[in-house]
């Protein structure tokens, strides 16, 4: 308990971040949260107590030196603040926007015990955005110069989500040539086809990717791991190591009648059409989306929120979100729930679907919902919902979006003999190094853990990259920056 006695400055309220007006933004795809100005950032940085044993840092999966970078903001040295961030986080502009800070750093912040925590995520975003105009090398490495390329080595990363991007960036910064194989036509994984523009502008992701290209990372789009090229073929063709970061796959459905009616979508399909296919500008872009008047979204996570808020922006008269537990149990970021409510999302808690009803042409017209109550907490501490028998209601709806999770994508495991997977298809990887049952083949991110977070996928990419660099260059020879000590303690 190293907190110093709260001083006067902590009495200052948390600095609000400017946002687009909810009425306006509910109909556009511009970013909702506009970011701090320099004055706001300095004011907010002043609320930090500079704890000797900062609780926030323990709450961060990659243990960013939080008081360290905040101190530099307060001192007005944004370059140094950025350098501190980059020591442990290679995509801070993304993380500042999408991490669940309330359960991580901000959830642990001492100031938050009595009032509102320091707005660590907003400060992180401010520093990263301010920096993004810098040179490529600086953006990726946080240092002014990169190691000389080692032509005798090469590593393949399959998939281009945060896990692979982090792995590739780390290795490239150490002079190891990397090729990233992505199945889709755009690079970035969920950051480009899942999370919508209004929450994470694609330009932010593209800038990070351009920086990696400048470092020499080669990106091959339209290459499907396990199909166009398999893991054994990559190893045979001279790649010294392979990192598998193919993310989650196969959307789960609800298993209730009528689920294949026209108008019932998985959130993945809906969001991919809109984000990757740019259906928001149909017919100027060719991929269509589904016009709907009353949309009902099922789920309570970030994916459900993104789907619901996208449907609002595409002109639905009403968007409802049905969740079988209560708001309190929703796994989404609090900020997203708050924003969605401001924008007019109708939330139907304690409701589960029992049937989708269609018209004679096979189009959805109604949804039957079952009322639920919260039962006793299970082993995980969450209360499981229990049906109130006989208590159902029927809603008129022409579109339903199902966001109840995903399974494992089978393409890689089907075509990689000797690759061990868990019963549900996720790849078995050593938690410390990410190495799989096949030597020199590593895996990390959602394909190992199941759907998780951007920062945890990045952590896995980084741990694997470090293990690969140690193996290829010899321990320590990679010129490890000092931050890796922090990383090690994070693994322990």
């Amino acid at each position, binding site marked *: 308990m190293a907190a110093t006695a709260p001083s006067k400055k902590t009495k200052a309220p948390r600095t609000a971040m400017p946002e687009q007006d909810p009425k306006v933004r509910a109909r556009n795809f511009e970013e909702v949260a506009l970011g701090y100005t320099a004055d706001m950032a300095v004011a907010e940085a002043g609320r930090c107590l500079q704890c000797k044993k900062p609780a926030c840092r323990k709450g961060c999966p990659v243990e960013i030196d939080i008081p360290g970078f905040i101190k530099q903001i307060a001192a007005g040295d944004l370059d140094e603040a950025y350098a501190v961030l980059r020591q442990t986080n290679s995509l801070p502009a993304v993380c500042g926007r999408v991490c669940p800070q309330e359960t991580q750093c901000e959830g642990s912040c001492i100031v938050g015990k009595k009032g509102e925590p320091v707005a660590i995520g907003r400060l992180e975003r401010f520093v990263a955005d301010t920096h993004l105009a810098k040179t490529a090398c600086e953006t990726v490495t946080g240092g002014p110069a990169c190691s000389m390329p080692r032509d005798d080595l090469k590593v393949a990363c399959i998939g281009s989500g945060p896990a692979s991007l982090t792995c590739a960036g780390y290795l490239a910064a150490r002079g190891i040539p990397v090729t990233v194989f992505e*199945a*889709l*036509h755009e690079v970035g994984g969920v950051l480009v086809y899942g999370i919508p523009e209004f929450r994470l502008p694609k330009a932010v992701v593209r800038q990070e990717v351009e920086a990696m290209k400048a470092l020499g990372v080669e990106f*091959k*789009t*339209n*290459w*499907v791991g396990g*199909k*166009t*090229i398999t893991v054994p073929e990559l190893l045979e063709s001279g790649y010294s190591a392979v990192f598998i970061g193919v*993310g*989650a*796959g*196969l*959307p789960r*459905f609800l298993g209730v009648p009528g*689920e*294949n009616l*026209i*108008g019932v*979508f*998985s959130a*993945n*399909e809906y969001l*991919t*059409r809109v984000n990757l*296919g*740019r259906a928001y*500008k*149909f*017919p*100027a*872009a*060719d*991929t*269509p*989306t*589904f*016009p709907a008047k009353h949309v009902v979204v099922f789920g309570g996570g970030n994916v459900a929120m993104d789907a619901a808020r996208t449907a609002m922006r595409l002109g639905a008269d009403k968007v409802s979100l049905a969740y079988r537990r209560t708001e309190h149990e929703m796994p989404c970021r609090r900020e997203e729930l708050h924003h969605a409510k401001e924008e007019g999302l109708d939330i139907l808690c304690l409701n589960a679907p029992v049937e989708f009803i269609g018209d004679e*042409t*096979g189009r959805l017209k109604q949804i039957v919902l079952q009322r639920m109550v919260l039962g006793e907490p299970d082993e995980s501490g969450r209360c499981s919902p229990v049906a109130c028998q006989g208590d159902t209601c029927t809603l008129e709806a022409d579109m339903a979006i199902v966001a109840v999770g*995903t399974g494992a*994508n*089978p*393409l890689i495991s089907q075509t990689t003999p000797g690759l061990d997977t868990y019963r549900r298809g996720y790849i078995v990887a050593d938690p410390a190094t990410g190495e799989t049952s096949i030597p020199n083949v590593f895996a990390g991110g959602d394909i190992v853990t199941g759907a998780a977070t951007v920062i945890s996928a990045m952590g896995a990419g980084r741990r694997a990259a470090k293990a690969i660099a140690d193996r290829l260059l010899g321990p320590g020879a990679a010129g490890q920056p000092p931050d890796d000590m922090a990383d090690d303690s994070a693994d322990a």
Partner: protein
Amino acid sequence: MPSRILRKRKLIPGMTSELVIEAPHIAAKALPGNFVILRVWEDGERIPLTIADADKEAGTITLVYLVMGKTTAHLETLDAGDDILDLCGPLGRATEIHKVDGPVICVGGGTGIAAMHHIAKGHHMAGNRVVTIIGARCEDLLLFRDELCSFCPEVLIATNDGSCGRQGLVTDLLVEMLENDKTVAEVVAVGPVPMMRAVAEATRPFGVKTTVSLNSIMVDGIGMCGACRVSVGGETRFACVDGPEFDGHAVDFGELGARLTAFKDQERLSYEEFKSHGCNCSK
């Protein structure tokens, strides 16, 4: 990484063309039953097309498409020497081909004849006796007859107007064959949904294994979105990774047919805009 069109052949002017595309990495892996997903321009839609043939040595794949709407019409404006912006494959599970005792009957309708061609060739290479049955409205619309005849001695033809082969439907020829030959090992059907459904119904009483290649709407083609889901034997399957070939006797064709109309109003709008203004990409 764009892929170059090396040759283009108009099979039915304005309606159906064949493209031979330089794609060595796909050709090296392409097996009968596989498909690709392509995109023609920056804001284009991803659409699936079957690999009708592949030449590993030349590093090429062959696609045959019917102009249905915006994307295929746009594709039809391209010529030899032009590039296809994105081409990804080979996708889907390959056809299961083993040496079998009796004949394998491969049925193709419309553009499906080209897709069926690769499967028939695969069975032929495996040493199976292959009989192909192809059908169209009239002789001018019959595709790939020469290609099939080049390796398959038994090519049976049905046209609705009787301009070539038997007047009638492919299923008429199929039922006759099944009645006369009790050793038929398998029937494979590729074509429009009503045709595949009719084939499955025709073979059901004979209890002959029947494989159909489903053409549900796809987005990613790698098992992430669920757009392509179909009901097979009462279970939801993903055509892009579990298929596209399934047991024809277990497929819910009614649902598939309905799902194919999901975006019909948007597709019409998009196609009309294209016909009246051309592509947005040239603006």
